[in-house]
Structure formats: structure tokens, C-alpha cells
């Protein structure tokens, strides 16, 4: 093996032409590569570079909007204002107590076959005092997406139906006996607590439980319109 000599080897860092910057413009750290002969006739290199970007942008721009619309298709659905039968009031044995009514709702989602989902609603047969706490002297109106009134819950009707969705972050709450507060609606997720009138007693919920349009037939059949409201807002914003 011949002896190795350092001066026989260079790294790219060491290829330097001293005082080059005195003769042509060089930015410190810039790497200069000899220009191939064929390239020497090509003018306007910066123009071609910018033109490449413009063409790329022109390809991207017209497909951005169709892609966005494509993905947004199912986001907004019309409200369903059908009355659903959820059970009979004979299930309610005591006044001012939350009773869970479980029911099945038919769901038809775009191309999928129609299927049933289990949902629940809480119904309270209210004493006049509790009714006053729910309605505070005013009938409650419900509107469709255009803002027209589709139903009014009269303040004298003793049956109140609460959506099963907790207004805090959308969990499902239960009727429980609380050590200090007595019988309450309690959400196991983030521990929001509501009284039988739906008002917040404790926990992080921003508003009272959402009362739904409810009507009770002469035979005691309870019907509701299955509405859902956005969780986490002070105001009620209907989303379903």
C-alpha cells in the first residue's frame, strides 16, 4: 500500500478559489457549480424557475375548490321534524323524577341501508312548582331551519322531555341520588349536575338541559320531536 498523504485528498469544504469574491458576486456559504456548456445559451433561468411555480399553482388552484366541496357534501343536513313515539306515561310512577324513555329511531344515511339506532329521552311529570322552574312563566317555541315556529310547549302541560345529550360535551347523563343534592340528573363524563327542572346545580355545563317538543295523547302515549343541540354553548343552537 502506498503511504497516504493528506494533501492528496480534499473535501468539498476545501474547494475554494481565493479572492473569487473580488471578481464576481458570491454570497458567503453559496455553492458554485460549473455551468455545463449546453446550458450556457439558456437565458432567463429565474424566469423559468418562477414560471414552473406559476404552472404548479395553476394546476393546484382549480382542483382545490372541487376537493373542498367534495369533502363537505354530507356536512349539513336538513332538520327532521317528525314526531316519534317514545313510550307511555304509565312508566312514570312519581312526580318530579327523571324517567328514561328508550326508543329506536330509523336512520337513513346517504347510500347506507336504513337502520335503527337506540336513543333515549328523559321525561319528567312535573308538579306546578317544578313546571314554573322549567318554563319560568313562558311557553317554549321550537323552530325549523327557516325560523318558522313548528311547535310550542305550553307551560301548563306537566310533561317535560329532555334530550338525552348533556349540554356540556354531549355525553349521556343519568338520574342519580347525589349525597348532598338529592335526586339529580348527573353526567358521568365531566360531572355536570342538573335538577329535575333541568337547571344546572353544579359542574361545568354552560346551560340547562334541552327540553324537546313533547305531546302526550289521551291514551298517555308520549311523542317527541328528536332534536339535538350543540353542546358547550350558552345559547341553544339546533344541529339535528
Amino acid at each position, binding site marked *: 500500500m502506498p503511504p497516504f498523504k493528506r494533501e492528496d485528498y480534499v473535501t468539498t469544504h476545501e474547494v475554494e478559489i481565493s479572492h473569487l469574491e473580488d471578481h464576481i458576486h458570491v454570497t458567503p456559504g453559496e455553492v458554485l457549480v460549473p455551468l455545463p456548456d449546453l446550458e450556457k445559451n439558456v437565458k432567463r433561468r429565474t424566469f423559468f424557475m418562477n414560471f414552473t411555480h406559476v404552472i404548479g399553482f395553476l394546476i393546484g388552484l382549480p382542483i382545490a375548490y372541487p376537493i373542498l366541496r367534495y369533502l363537505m357534501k354530507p356536512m349539513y343536513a336538513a332538520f327532521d321534524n317528525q314526531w316519534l313515539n317514545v313510550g307511555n306515561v304509565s312508566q312514570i310512577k312519581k312526580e318530579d323524577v327523571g324517567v328514561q324513555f328508550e326508543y329506536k329511531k330509523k336512520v337513513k344515511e346517504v347510500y*347506507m341501508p336504513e337502520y335503527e339506532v337506540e336513543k333515549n329521552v328523559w321525561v319528567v311529570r312535573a308538579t306546578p312548582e317544578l313546571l314554573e322552574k322549567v318554563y319560568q312563566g313562558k311557553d317554549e317555541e321550537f323552530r325549523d331551519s327557516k325560523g318558522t315556529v313548528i311547535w310550542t310547549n305550553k307551560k301548563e302541560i306537566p310533561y317535560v322531555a329532555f334530550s338525552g345529550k348533556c349540554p356540556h360535551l354531549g355525553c349521556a347523563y343519568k338520574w342519580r341520588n347525589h349525597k348532598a343534592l338529592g335526586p339529580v340528573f348527573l353526567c*358521568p*363524563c365531566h360531572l355536570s349536575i342538573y335538577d329535575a327542572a333541568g337547571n344546572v346545580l353544579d359542574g361545568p355545563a354552560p346551560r340547562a338541559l334541552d327540553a324537546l317538543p313533547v305531546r302526550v295523547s289521551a291514551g298517555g302515549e308520549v311523542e317527541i320531536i328528536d332534536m339535538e343541540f350543540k353542546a358547550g354553548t350558552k345559547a341553544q343552537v339546533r344541529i339535528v
Partner: protein
Amino acid sequence: MDSKHSSPATIPDHQPSAIERLVAFLDERVGLKEMQAKMLNEPIPGGSRWAYVFGSILLFIFAMQAVTGTLLMFYYVPTTDHAYDSTQYIIHDVDYGWFLLGYHFWGSSAMVVCVVAHMSQVFLWGAYKKPRELLWLVGLALFGIVITFGFTGYLLPWDQRAFWATTVGVEILDKTPVVGDFIARFLKGGPTPGQMTLSRFFVLHVMILPAALMALAGLHLFLFRVAAPAGPFSGTKEEIRAKTDYFFPRQIWKDMVGMAFVFVGICALALWEPVVLLDQAAPDPGDYHPEPEWYFLFYFQLLRLKIFAGEFGQFLGAVALPAVFMALLVALPFFDKDPERNIFKRPIALISWIAIMVMIVLFTVASVINREFLD
């Protein structure tokens, strides 16, 4: 690699074997040996350490998640009428399906644990400081991807646990001012979780996130090699240079031992704590008390606090707190310009790290204790 072996032609009377000739053929065209030398002969300043194993382990966990995830897709069907049944089929009928699903499930937990360990190591070693700011930023993006992986994968079995974690998780995103409603509907593909949500989470989980993770992990490694490893935070330049080692063999050996530990750990969890589905997803949870995966429990408990009550409180807890935390992590290498890397000379950094870890442990324990009071 011994340099003598790399050039068999210089040894007289040596007839190269078929394999050596094949390697030489490929090497001539691909530059295998140079590539191997680049990969293995990476100098580790100050020598190999057990503390450096987490990056390699994460790569290993991801590879295993990709393998087990691909295998799960042979039977899994991402529709609301078949997701639950196909997952049950994997668990109960397919040979070793329970094991592969269990491995994938516990692998995700291992991923989160190792990401936190990796980030902690980088933070405590001050390795995010100049010139490694971009490495840290890409790492944060990877952290976000890992969390999103966990969140989207959670929905796929379509059981009660899946449904409620998604319902609440998306409601949290909904609290973002101005764009929250759009984001939530965009993710769910409608006002409530359903088929569109499952489709979207599925595409995110098996296509978009893996592609993003591979691209960013590649960039992460590239930036790591450009900046070179940070090395220990104490010792003089001469001491560190004297102990400097190549990646192969000592660090690779430690990494392999770490991977083996993680592999055995995940297998053990898959064996002893196999995945059991709850009832099929429905907007009526029955007796089930919704709860997120264990690594989100501290945050779940945090949102129960009084200061996060009401509309503004919810914005604070659901949006502002995580956003500020992430923004601080992003800004960290840019405001912490002190070149001191020794963690024992950076009291604020040390105290912050301890405080965050203690907070996570305390709130996790609190949420577990709270379970008892719910029934």
C-alpha cells in the same frame, strides 16, 4: 464493518462467493456499502446511552403498528353495519386475530408512552436548542400525528367506548372559536357521528396519517443527521470526543434491547389484557359511563374542574389550554436561547417538566378514584 472485507479483490487467491458477487454487483450500482457506512458510522458524541433508545423504539413500534394494522384490514369493514361485527370476528373467530388486535391496541399505548419519554429526554437534555430547532418542530408535528392516530383508531371498532370517545372528542374541537363548528362537521361528515364519520376516521387512520408520519419521520431523521446528535449535556469537548462512539455497535445494541423489552411488554399486555368490545355503538349508552383511553384521562378529569365551567370556561379548557401548551412547545427553542444544556443548571425547565408530569399523574389518579362515585 471491517474495511478489509469490503474489498475482497485485494486479497490474492480469494474466489468471491456467489453472494459476495451479488453484493458487489448491487453495491456497484446502488452504493450499498456507502449507504451502510453512512447509517452505521454515525458518531454519537460522548458515546452510546440507554437514554437515547426511544427514537429507535418509536420507529420499531410504528413498523409493528403498520404490520398489525395492515393485517387487521384483511377482515375489518369500515361501515356502521359491519365494523362492530367484523371486529368481533377478528377477536373471536380468526386464528390469532385477538392477538394481532391486542398487539395493535397496546402498541398504540406504547407509542404514546415512548413519544412522551422521547420528548422528555430531548427536553431534559436541552437537545431542542440551536441548531436543532427544526428537529424539535418536526418532532412536535409527529407528536400531533401520534395523538390523532390514537383518536381516529379508537372509533374504528364501533362499540360504545368508540362512539362516546369520538362524540366528546369532536365536541371539544367544536369549541374552537369561529371555525369550530365547521371543523366538527367536517370531521364527522355531518351533525352527529355515523357512517360518514367512520369513513373519514378510517381514511385518516389508514392512509393520511401513515403517509404523513412516514414523510415527517423521514424528515425528522434527515434533520437529525444534518444537525448531528446533541450528546451529553455535561463534560468538556475533549472528554466528549474521547468517549465518542459510532451508532454501530453499542447504540444499536442498546436500541435492540429496548425494542425487545417493548415487544415483550406489548405481547404480555395483548395476552393478559386482551381487547374486549363493549356493546355496539349507539347514541344510548345504557349503563356505560363514557371514558377516554387512559392517556387522555388526566385531560378528561381536568375538564371537570370548576374553572372550565360555562361557555368561556369550556373555551379555556377545550381550546385555549391545549393551544397555549402546544404554542409554548413550538416557541420553546426560540425563546430559550441560553446555550446551557445541563438540566441541573436550568431550574425553570426542570421544575416545569416535573410539574407537568406530577399534574398528569395526579389528575389521572383522580379520574380513576372518581369512577367509584359514579355508580
